[in-house]
């Protein structure tokens, strides 16, 4: 299972070229819950904004919504340009299917579709000495 950073510096939700009509239908609830930086690509290489965000070692996750017929090319373009970015690809053929997935992520509190890595609370509980080793 792919792992995702629990608290990225930036989280983008990007729609592939030609999917602008999907955005308001599919992303409504998801955006309200997670507030990603949202835009529709103008070209298959439209990742410059992500590149500025990811400079200087900042942690960036890109949730990338694509249709099946163009997904391979767009993903290849993304991987070529965004080497230090974690990709979260979503490939669907209808906005309805994408909406179901994104809404389910909200429902299950899984921003990237997998259980979130628990955040290190920073303070470990104090172990109580006793006859049973705590391991």
């Amino acid at each position: 299972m792919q792992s995702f950073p629990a608290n990225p510096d930036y989280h983008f939700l990007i729609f592939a070229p030609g999917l602008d009509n999907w955005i308001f239908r599919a992303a409504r609830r998801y955006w309200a819950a997670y507030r990603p930086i949202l835009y529709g690509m103008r070209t298959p290489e439209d990742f410059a904004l992500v590149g500025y965000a990811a400079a200087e070692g900042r942690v960036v996750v890109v949730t990338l919504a694509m249709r099946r017929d163009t997904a391979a090319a767009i993903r290849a373009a993304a991987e070529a340009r965004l080497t230090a970015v974690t990709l979260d690809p979503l490939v669907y053929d209808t906005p309805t299917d994408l909406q179901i997935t994104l809404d389910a992520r909200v429902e299950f509190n899984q921003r990237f579709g997998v259980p979130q890595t628990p955040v290190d609370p920073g303070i470990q509980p104090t172990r109580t000495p006793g006859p049973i080793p705590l391991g």
Partner: protein
Amino acid sequence: MRLDEYQWSRNPRGMHNTGVFRYDLRRYREIKAGWVKLVAADHEFVPNIPELLAAGITPIIRVYRAAWGSRAADAQSYADIARYIQAGARWFELWNEPNLGNEWPAPLGSALDPNNIGVYIAPLMDHWVEWAERVIEMGGYPAFIALAESDSPPHHTTGWLRNMMVYLRDVHAARFRRILGNGLWLATHPYIYNHFYQEIPGGGPLSARPPEQQNAAQGGWHFEYPYDPIGQADDPGRTVWGNTPRTPYGDPNGLTSVGHAFMELLRDYFGGGVVPVVGTEGGIWPWPGPGDGTRVDDARYPGVTWQSHAEATTAMFDWIASSAAPPWMFGVTLWKEDIYWEGPHGVAPAVQRLASLPAPLKEVPPLDTGGTVWSSPLQPNAVATPLPEGPGPVHGGPDYHFIMLAPGIDPEWFFQAAEQYWLRFAPVLLDSPALIANLPYDKTLAVTVIATPDQAEAMNASIRDRWPTIWYDLIIVQSAADLLTVFNQRLNVNRRFG
């Protein structure tokens, strides 16, 4: 230089004085003016400059020279300008409407021809460049010469303007670019007839209230002629340059038309940039007396009455301050003081209407004027504007357009109201300004902020004041319906920012 660095009141209301030696601060204050145009015989208004500035009124000085044609500025005019600058004035004009015969000495006035470059355009521009440089060196802002609005040769505004700019490009390109980068502004004379209207509530962009139902305190005004929906529906594709069979010599008759033409020529001949535009004569003109019924100069639009003139004039200034107007449109000084206060029918209703409502203030985005840094023995320490953190000044259109929801704004408002706007303009949606700092200086950015009235001040501080080079576009709303109205208005006029 940037558009927001010009010193002025930010209040687009203005009045043209009656004539040389005529001045009445009480009247300018009565209408809550932000500009006053003072036609001066010499330095008679120098003592008045401090009190005008103290009252929040920016003076524009035109040193009057009758039928000056293309003659060089005389020594006395330079001496007078220096005294005005010493007193605190910045904005200056000298030549006036050279596309009209009465502004030239005989016999030149009867043989006007903008294509006779050697006789008309060349000496005018040669002398203007010299004057503009000296005004800047003294610390002032020089006006590009105001043309009368005409669509008839040999007076046609677009022909004169294009030939003046072509000559500058071909002969004085480097000098003009220095002027452009150090205080240039454009004076226009928008006498706009009845080229405006106010929509009927719920009636759509092609609906127009009759003059007796117009109300300055309500929205739906259109002053973008010839780009407004009624004009475009009647003659699709018409621009200030014409572009249609019905407009062979252009259509410069609108509040912002000549400003658009000038900015397009700056882009085409000098690589872009925008400069302030002030209508230094004009307004809704002509208008009828109280017993004269409705005056209709262009039958495509509602007419004007004695009373509706007051509503429309007040609304015109509010429109200039709004995001519906181009950012470079800074105001109009109405023609003229004696007509408004001493006309045959007494004080014009516009005076009372303007007095009854607070003056609007214009937010000016930090757009690049273009041009180059001044280098002169008189200003040895001139330096370019320091580069701030984040994106650079917007030059033409921005590279990126962010829409940011202020904290607490319900995202549902956006998703209910913005779909058509989104599909037209394809912005980037976010809810934090953090990303702005990561954009490099060679990229430009506009940020539309959606906020409620109580959030505006905080958003101004965190976005506009923090990032002075971005194009800041604040939308203040109190509901999803308000937001839908704003976006629909922008869509109707096909303007990303209003």
